[in-house]
C-alpha cells in the first residue's frame, strides 16, 4: 500500500504546479500518502549565519560580518561572558516600563493585561536590542523550561520577580542554583498550587512538575511514590499572604515586622516533618525547611537531570538530541556541577551545531529576528499583538511544559507571520520602524534586499523595497534558523 516518499513528493509537486497554472484537472492531492514526517530543507547555511541563528535572534548582515571578522571562538566567548554594555536607549526604554519597577503584590494596582504587556515588552526589547544575545536566548529557553502561566491567580504580580530573580539571574549560571531559586519562586509556587500543599493533604502538583519537567524528565526514573514523597517535603512552602502588621503603635513599629506580601514563606505549621524517602534517599524527620533543600540537591545531582537538561539544550541549539553530543554535554554538567556556560560552550563549539538540521523559529524568534535583520527600531509594544496572533504571547502558555519547540505545532502560524511581515515593511506597526536607509546603505547602489534580510538570494523580482523586505521576511527560508 505504502508509496515511497519520492512518489508522494512528486504527487504533491504535480498538484501544486497544476494549482498554480490554474489548470482544472483534479489534483491527486488527497489520494497521496502522507509521510510520517516531512523533512526540513537541508540546504546548509553559511557557518556565521548558522552560528548567529542559534546563539542570537537572527543573523543581521552587520553581525554576520562581525562574526566572520572575529571568528567563532571569540564570538562564543563574548556571548558566554555576556558583559557587553547595554545600549543607553535600551536602558531608558526598559526604565519606562512602570509596572516592572515594583515588585510582588505592590503591583496590584496595575491591570492584568498591563502587567503582561510590559513583561512581554521588556523581553522583546532585550531580545532585539541587547548585545548579549545568548543570554536573552537562554532567558527564553529557561522561561519555557520553568514555564509559568501568568494569568493564573495572582501570578501576574509575581512573574516579574521570577523573571528577574530566577530566570535572568541564573540564565547563564549553575543549573542547581536555578532549580533552587525556582523552587522558592512565589510565582511558581502559586502557579503549581503549592500554597495548597499542606501536611494534612499534600498537593502533588508542584512536586510532579518539579520531577517531570524541571529536573529529571518523565522517564527520569522516579515513581508515583516519589512524587508523593517530594510533595510531603514541600508542604508548607507558600507565598506570604497574611495581612501586613499595620496595627503596631509607633513605639513598637519595626520595619522588620512588616510582612512582605508576595514573598516566599515557609510555614512550619503546615510542614509534614516526618521522615521521607525520595529516589532511594532518606530524608530524616525534623528537618523542616531543609527537606526541600535536600530534595533539590538529590535531583540536581541525579544522572537523569544531567541528561535531561543536556538533551533539552541539544534540541534547542542543534535541533536534534543525538546520543554522542548529549553525552558530552551531560558530562560537562556532571563535571562542573551543572554549569550552564560550560554546557553551552561544548554545544556552541561542536561540529554538530553547524551540521544539525534547521529549526523552525517559534513566533518569538521570528519576530525578534525579523526586527533585528531589518535594523528596526521598536518599543516592543504593538509587535506584541502580532506575537499573540501567531500563538505565542509570552507567559501565557497555560501548561507547565512551555511553548512547544517542534515544527508541526507552528506551521499554522504562517499567515500571522506574513501579515506581520507585511505590516512591518509597510510601516503599519505603531512604535516600530524598519531602517530602510541603514539597511540599504550597506549595499551601495544595487540593493539586494533578500540577501540583506534573509542572508541568501530568493529570486525576487520587483523594485519596491517594502514589498521585497516583506517577501524576504515571509519566505520559507526566513522561517528556519
Amino acid at each position: 500500500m505504502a508509496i515511497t516518499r519520492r512518489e508522494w513528493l512528486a504527487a504533491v509537486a504535480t498538484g501544486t504546479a497544476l494549482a498554480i497554472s490554474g489548470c482544472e484537472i483534479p489534483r491527486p492531492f488527497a489520494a497521496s500518502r502522507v509521510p510520517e514526517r516531512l523533512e526540513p530543507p537541508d540546504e546548509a547555511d553559511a557557518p556565521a549565519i548558522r552560528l548567529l541563528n542559534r546563539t542570537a535572534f537572527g543573523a543581521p548582515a552587520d553581525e554576520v560580518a562581525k562574526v566572520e571578522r572575529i571568528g567563532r571562538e571569540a564570538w562564543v566567548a563574548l556571548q558566554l561572558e555576556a558583559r557587553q554594555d547595554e545600549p543607553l536607549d535600551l536602558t531608558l526604554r526598559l526604565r519606562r516600563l512602570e509596572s516592572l519597577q515594583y515588585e510582588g503584590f505592590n503591583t496590584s494596582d496595575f491591570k492584568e493585561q498591563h502587567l503582561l504587556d510590559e513583561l512581554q515588552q521588556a523581553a522583546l526589547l532585550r531580545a532585539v536590542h541587547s548585545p548579549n544575545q545568548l543570554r536573552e536566548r537562554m532567558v527564553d529557553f529557561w522561561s519555557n523550561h520553568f514555564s509559568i502561566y501568568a494569568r493564573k491567580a495572582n501570578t501576574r504580580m509575581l512573574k516579574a520577580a521570577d523573571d528577574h530573580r530566577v530566570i535572568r539571574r541564573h540564565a547563564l549560571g549553575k543549573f542547581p542554583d536555578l532549580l533552587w531559586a525556582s523552587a522558592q519562586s512565589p510565582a511558581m509556587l502559586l502557579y503549581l498550587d503549592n500554597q495548597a500543599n499542606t501536611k494534612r493533604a499534600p498537593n502533588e502538583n508542584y512536586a510532579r512538575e518539579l520531577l517531570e519537567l524541571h529536573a529529571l524528565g518523565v522517564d527520569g526514573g522516579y515513581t508515583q511514590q516519589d512524587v508523593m514523597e517530594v510533595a510531603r517535603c514541600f508542604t508548607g512552602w507558600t507565598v506570604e499572604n497574611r495581612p501586613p502588621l499595620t496595627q503596631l503603635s509607633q513605639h513598637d513599629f519595626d520595619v522588620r515586622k512588616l510582612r512582605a506580601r508576595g514573598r516566599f514563606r515557609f510555614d512550619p505549621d503546615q510542614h509534614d516533618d516526618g521522615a521521607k524517602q525520595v529516589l532511594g534517599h532518606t530524608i530524616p524527620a525534623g528537618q523542616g525547611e531543609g527537606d526541600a533543600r535536600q530534595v533539590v540537591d538529590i535531583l540536581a545531582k541525579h544522572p537523569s537531570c544531567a541528561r535531561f537538561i543536556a538533551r533539552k539544550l541539544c534540541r534547542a541549539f542543534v535541533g536534534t538530541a543525538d546520543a554522542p553530543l548529549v553525552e558530552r554535554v551531560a558530562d560537562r554538567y556532571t563535571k562542573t556541577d551543572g554549569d550552564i556556560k560550560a554546557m553551552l560552550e561544548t554545544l556552541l563549539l561542536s561540529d554538530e551545531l553547524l551540521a544539525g538540521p534547521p529549526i523552525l523559529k517559534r513566533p518569538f524568534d521570528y519576530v525578534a529576528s525579523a526586527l533585528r535583520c531589518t535594523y528596526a527600531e521598536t518599543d516592543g509594544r504593538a509587535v506584541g499583538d502580532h506575537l499573540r496572533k501567531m500563538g505565542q504571547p509570552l507567559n501565557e502558555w497555560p501548561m507547565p511544559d512551555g511553548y512547544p519547540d517542534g515544527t508541526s505545532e507552528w506551521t499554522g502560524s504562517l499567515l500571522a507571520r506574513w501579515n506581520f511581515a507585511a505590516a512591518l515593511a509597510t510601516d503599519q506597526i505603531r512604535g516600530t520602524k524598519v531602517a530602510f536607509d541603514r539597511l540599504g546603505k550597506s549595499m551601495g547602489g544595487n540593493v539586494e534586499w533578500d540577501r540583506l534580510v534573509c542572508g541568501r538570494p530568493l529570486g525576487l523580482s520587483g523594485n519596491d523595497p517594502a514589498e521585497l523586505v516583506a517577501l524576504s521576511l515571509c519566505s520559507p527560508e526566513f522561517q528556519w534558523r
Partner: protein
Amino acid sequence: MAMNERFACKGYRAWTSRPDALARFEPTRRGVLAALGLGTVSWLGARSAFSQLVVAPARVEQPTLVVVFLRGGMDGLNVVVPYGDDDYHRLRPNLALRKAQVLDLDGTFGLHPKLAPLLPFYREGSMAIVHAVGSGDQTRSHFEAMAAMERGLFTDSDALASGWLARYLRASSGTSSSPLRAVAFGPVLPDSLRGATQATAIASLDDYRLTDGKGKLTRDAFAENLRRLYGKRQDEVSLAGLETLNVLDALHSLEPSRRQEGGPYPETAFGDAVRQCATLLKAEVGVEAACLDMGGWDTHVYQGSVEGWQAGLLDELARSLAAFVADLGPRMKRTTIVVMTEFGRRVKENEGLGTDHGRGSALFALGAGVQGGRLYVNWPGLGPGALEGPGDLRVTTDYRNVLWSAVSSSLGEPGLSETFPGLQPEPHPALVKA
C-alpha cells in the same frame, strides 16, 4: 490568539473575552456553492481561483468527526455522578453531589445539573455516555496522557510520532483535496493532527486573511509571490505555506453574513470556537475532522460542586454544544461529536477542596451513528480494593475502542489498523450497532 483559553488548566481559567473575534462570519450555502463552482457552473469548467479548492461534488457530503478535548483532566466522577455509590460520598465529604442535586440517569448515576442543556439529546437517543473510560497511562502526567491519547495509543510511546486523526485522514483519503479536511480552532494544531497535511489551525475566521499593508501592497500580487516562494521546495513549512494559501482562497469565497440557527453560543473563547466550527461545517468546504480544545479542567483546588469552578466549565461546555447542534440542524446527520479528556481525577478530595490527577473519566458521544440514550459503564466500584494506584477510578473501557468505533463506518479494515496500530478492537456499542 487566546492561547490561554486553549489549554487553560492547572485549576485556573482565564476569562478573557474576545469581542473582536465575536464578529460574525457566516456563509450562505448558495454563496459557497457558487464560489466553489458547484452552483450553476460545472465544477470542472469553472475558471476561477476557487478551482484550486477542488472539492469533488461527491465529497461535499462527507461526514465530519468533531473531537472536543477537555484539557487538564476532567473529574468524571463529578460530571457523571455515581450518587448511588456510598464510597463516593465517603471519599468526597465536601465535593460530592447528592441524589437530589443531579439529573438522574438510571437510579445509580446522574448528570451534573449544569449539563441540563444536553439532557434532551440523551433522552431522545442521540447522545451516549461512557464511564470509567481512559488510556493505560500510569504516569498521571498531563503530557504523557495527552500524548498517548492524541497518538491513539494505550500508553505513550516514541515509536509513533503521528496523531491518530492524521492517520485517520490519511487512511480515509478519497478524492478530497480540500485544504480544510481537518481544522483545529486555536493557534496551533493539536498532536492528534500531527503529520496531517490538509490540516489547518484557525484562531479566528475573521482574522484569517492576508493583509495588504493598508493598500501599500497589492494583495493578489503578494499572494502570487508567496505561492512562488513556497512552491520551490517540499519541506514541511513550504507545504504548509501552500496549504495556507489554498485555505485563504477557500475562506475568501465564503460570503459573510450574520445568519445563525438556534440559540446563542456562550460568549467565551470556547463558545466562539464552536460557533466558528459550525460555520465551516455548514459551508461544506470539506471538513472531515474538527478539533476543539477547552481548558481549565485541572481542578487541584476549589473545584466546587453543584456550583463553582467545574460547574462553570460544564455550563459553558453544555451550552456551547447545545447551540452547535441547533445551529447545524440537519447537518448533524453527518456529524459525530466526541468529548474526551486525558484522565479523570483522584476519588478522594484533597485539602484544597479539589482533586488530584487520577485515571478513569467519562466520555460523551453525540450525533451521527451514536447509539444514545444509554450510559455505558462497567463500573469497577470505589471501594478500598477497587481503586487503582493512589486511589483512582479504574479504567474499564479502553478509549481507543470508542474512537475506533466512531470512525469504523468510514474506514475499511486496513485503514482501521493503520489508524490504531496494535489495537485488538472491541467495537463499542455506543457507536456500533450490535
